[in-house]
């Protein structure tokens, strides 16, 4: 069952993951350079190593949102198999946003971490 963790789940609401998904997409684009939707989905799946249950489709509204905010750009190009596909790439504003969001995220994690430790003691 190679695709078991992509199983569509009825209750997976894209908005729940919005903040994290945005950062994942931005980080992935930063490390990989321009990517099409499928490539991004696959990469995110690989990195999360089966811990993330997500419909691939939910990626596209997220991409649109990021594009509307001016953090990524898109253009139609040719894929490695010479097929027409839409490629997404990071903009300057997007790079800055990664910095901001990473900071935010680390602060949140550190805070939660402290709480969890405190609770455990």
């Amino acid at each position, binding site marked *: 069952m190679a*695709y078991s963790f992509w199983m569509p789940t009825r209750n997976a609401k894209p908005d729940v993951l919005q903040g994290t998904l945005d950062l994942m997409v931005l980080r992935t684009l930063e490390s990989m350079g321009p990517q099409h939707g*499928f490539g991004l989905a696959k990469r995110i799946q690989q990195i999360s190593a089966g811990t993330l249950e997500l419909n691939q*489709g939910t990626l*596209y*509204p997220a991409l649109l949102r990021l594009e509307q905010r001016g953090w990524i750009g898109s253009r139609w190009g040719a*894929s490695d198999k010479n097929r027409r596909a*839409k490629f997404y790439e990071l903009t300057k504003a997007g790079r800055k946003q990664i910095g901001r969001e990473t900071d935010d995220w680390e602060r949140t994690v550190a805070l939660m971490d402290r709480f969890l430790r405190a609770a455990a003691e």
Partner: protein
Amino acid sequence: MRTLWNRLTALFSQRRRDRDLSEEVEVHLEMRAAELRQQGLDPNAARAAARRDFGGIEQMKETYRDRRGVPWVEILAKDVTYGLRGLRRNPAFTLAAVLSLALGIGANTAIFSFVNTLMLRLLPVEKPEQLLNLYRTGGWGKGYASYPLYLEFRKHTDLFAGVFARSGADKVRFDPGHSNSIEYVQREYVTGNYFDVLGIKPAIGRLLQDEDNRTPQAHPIVVVSYDFWRNRLALDPAVLGRVLKVDEQPLTVIGVAAPGFHGVEVESRAEMWVPAMMFRGQIMQPGMHWVWIMARRLPQISRSRIQAASNTIMQRYLMSVYGGQRDSAFGKWALEQRIDVRDAGVGISMLREEFGKPLTILMAAVGLVLLIACANVASLLIARGAARRREIAMRFSLGASRWRLVRQWLIESLLLAMLGTILGLAFAIWGERYMLLFLPPGAGERFDVAPDATVLGFTLAISILSAILFGLAPALRATSLDPAAALKDGGSQQPGHGARAGFRKALVVVQVALSVVLVAAAGLFAHSLAGLRSINTGFAAQNVVTFSLDYPRAWKSVDHEKHRDTLLARLSAVPGIASVSYGMPGPYQGGSWSSGIRVPGSARTAKEGVQVDEQAIGPAYFETIGIRPLRGREFDPADFRSTRKIAVVNAAFVREFLPGTQDPAGRVFSFDVSKPEGGEPTYIVGLVRDVLHDGLKTSAKPTVYVPFREAEVSYDPTLLVRAPLPPGALLPVIRRELSRIAPEVMLVEPRTLRQRVDDSIFVERMVATLSGFFGGLALLLAAIGIYGVMAYAVARRTAEIGLRIALGAAPAKITWMVLRDGLLLIGLGVTIGLPLSLAAGRISASLLHGIKPDDPPVFALAIAVLLGTGVLAAFLPARRAAAVAPIEALRHE
């Protein structure tokens, strides 16, 4: 900002973007499928798995689209188109809903326009909330005060930022200079600080100053209103310095007031302002009440403090003027005067006092009408929701969210409300015109009820509010379903219909309850009006035309008399005219004249003089108003030439002063009240029945009629013409004779006596007519509601009814079964409505004359009418139920 721009541009390239998205999804699926094929899946399985991985494609696209456009603009446009299509598909439903709403909204807008004009609209002046009216009560008349009193209040700069006085706006002659016709203009006398205190700026030239109002008759200047300048002087820039002849006073124009300013009175619009010092009369006389005193309070001083201070000021002033006469009846009366400090930001209005409360009650009535209309539309929407279950279920399964569907419903409701509002505004304009017809000519002349921003805002607000009111519950109900079940059953069976029907039944109960209130109120007002109408005025109002005459100023009072005599002589020679006369003040002229008298031998006048109504009448006065003296005689022509003091008295006079006297002829009374037995005697020559000269709502007062002798009476009388001709034919005759004798004499306010009586009860007529209309409307709407619910219930139970008939139930029994359901609802509604309507009756008690607010016949009738209407509305579906053919009913299943 950028996001918004992106979204806006996206609106215009929708199709291309949709294609792009589809292609992108396709590429994704293909890539994933290719990957899976490499792992060894066959193409079909790979394709299916790719789709599964992707999740709901259409759902994603919907989310994507929502996010892409400017969502609300785009979705709104879509929902509106969709909604309009739905309304077009269902014309009967749309018509019923829109008409119900239009009547409700139209009635509200019409009444609110009056409320707005009369009670809410602020004057277009600086800080209107600081304006006060120092309203005089007690003593003579109400509201009007004297010039010396104004000067007294003006001294108190510790309370007021400014105090000014103004006469009422008077209709006076205006000589336009370019034609022979005589025009009239609304002129107001004002103090020099009038514009300053109000904060009005000139459009051109300058406005009045205190220096312009120092010396009597020394300031022949005038400020005109912008409207006057535009309408009568064609915005002539050379108007400054021009001399206008107004009321035969030559006045130099010094300026034009700012546009939109028409003075401070609601129901009459001043067109020009003249310094008070130009008033022809004893301006400094304390007994001459001719100005309204208005003030701007200092911002830090409250109205209640000003009221307290004004009481002191008034007491001190009254003592200084009347203190010496404090023991006489006159002095006592004079000392009873008070100042009532009122807010004047909404302007001065005499109509407001009479009409304010009725308007509030009518406003409440139309509010109820709108509620009933909303209940109807809600009921219709619920029925429609039931019919559209399949469509809703379909949209659900296609991925629409519940919120989206509720929104769609609300937008349809808003569309209905908007259509209703547009039609309602048309109704409102028509209704306002109709309502204006009730106002007596004096009051309604310049009454501006054209909808302004406030009225339109109100209308919009109530229409949106009603859309939510009637739309939300049906929307929530219609969208609370299990799509799978709804699709499976094909929309014919309706789980949850019990609750739905229950809600509609509750709406019907509410409708009936509110209708009881409106019908009962209509009945109360109609009964009260009928009572007023049946009051015997004491005279024959049929076929009598009354009018006054306006003479050129140069004419002396002997000229008036000569002219009047000539006119009456000529008119009485016209074939078809039965009788002519005159009287001062005359019947129903909106005023009364009173004098103090002493009656020798009467206990009533032994201690002090008593005020009685006085009428100075011409020859054949009683004949003209159609009554005969009960005893003695009417005045004969010789009485008018003699100086002997004689009088005719009415029955109330005899009851009051000469109780037990059969024939008062030969008895005396005296207008000299200085001595207990009176001074110079006035001989009573006749007795007439009681005539209600002064309105239907007051009982007849003791009245003395004296011969109208020009030298003794300082006002022109009202002329009366009795003719069996219709007034439409009589008026041209009067005008013709007038212009033959002297074209410069103008006919003023010709009205039949009947109309004048009607004018005196215009509030009652208006309230009775309108509440009758609203009551009828409520009944109609409730009947539609009952019919709708019952018809729906019968349709739903067709199978069951068919079965019952097949099993041998008699048609009458079926009819009764259905009818009983309807009666239950109506009975419940009436039970709830009855206490409500009793409360409503108590609230409007002050508008009722001669009946109690719990008038039993009215309430019995209201219940009967409701039951009758309800039974009729429920009977039609019941009969249809009884006629169900069993075979058909089973096929129906």
